[in-house]
């Protein structure tokens, strides 16, 4: 396995073991993810279909999932989405993102546990699930089933974005043996 999950209690996890260290690490990663969200929000890019974007911020959550734990990844994501929602995506944007992120993280944890998939594969599934989650939230909020016409578009865009993010995270994980 190119990126073995680390067992607890190794010396390299010193910072993440203590409570204070945890808080600091999560805050640091959430801040980093927020910057990525901001960078993405200011790029003027409109593909015509809402919901298609790279989601660079997810690279942070993905690295957290692989180098720390699912709890860390969830915490980083929730903090990032809530603050990004207040700052630039809007409350409804945050709702969509939360739905997507929750489903995406659950799926990614499951795939990662299976041990069959690389970080790129896990991320690809995560990207697809993220978009599906958003689609579900949108369908619930809008009470309009026509929105499922976006399904194929969002599936493929989620795949592509997920693979790109996954490859990026793989490279970062390789350099971050001692997070």
């Amino acid at each position: 396995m190119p990126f073995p999950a680390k067992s607890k209690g190794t010396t390299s996890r010193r910072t993440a073991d203590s409570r204070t260290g945890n808080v600091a690490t999560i805050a640091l990663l959430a801040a980093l993810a927020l910057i990525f969200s901001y960078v993405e929000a200011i790029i003027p890019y409109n593909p015509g279909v809402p919901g298609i974007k790279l989601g660079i911020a997810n690279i942070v959550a993905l690295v957290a999932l692989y180098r720390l734990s699912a709890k860390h990844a969830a915490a980083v994501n929730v903090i990032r989405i809530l603050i990004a929602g207040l700052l630039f995506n809007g409350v409804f944007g945050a709702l969509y993102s939360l739905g997507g992120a929750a489903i995406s993280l659950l799926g990614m944890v499951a795939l990662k546990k299976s041990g069959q998939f690389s970080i790129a594969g896990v991320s690809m599934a995560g990207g697809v699930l993220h978009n599906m989650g958003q689609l579900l939230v949108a369908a619930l909020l809008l009470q309009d089933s026509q929105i499922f016409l976006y399904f194929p578009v969002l599936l493929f865009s989620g795949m592509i974005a997920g693979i790109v993010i996954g490859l990026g995270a793989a490279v970062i994980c390789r350099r971050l043996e001692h997070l």
Partner: protein
Amino acid sequence: MFKGIIRKADILLAGVLILIGVAASLWISQFDTSGSRVIIKTDGKVYGSYSISQDRTVTVKQGKKTNTVRIHGGEVSVTHASCHNQVCVKHKAIHTTGESIICLPNKMVVQIQGKGGDEYDAISS
């Protein structure tokens, strides 16, 4: 740089996802999203649904009552009606979503619906 990252299961998963995506696109493309549809209802029930972009003439028969609906060049008009007041025949041709021609004596409604409409609601249920 990316050497040794992608594994067999990844490619398998990608294949499955692509299949689902292609299948979903094919499925959705069946529902003619290209343009509006002409819905003809008689007595509240759907008699037929036709694409507005295809020229055709539909004869709506209900026993002795008949109406002839003409779809031509993106416009819909009623060219013949068996009823006595002929309101629907005198009605101007309709072409935008939401417009309708109604023949009260024959209880017939010709309606133009936008993309989706009833068909898509049926999918979600």
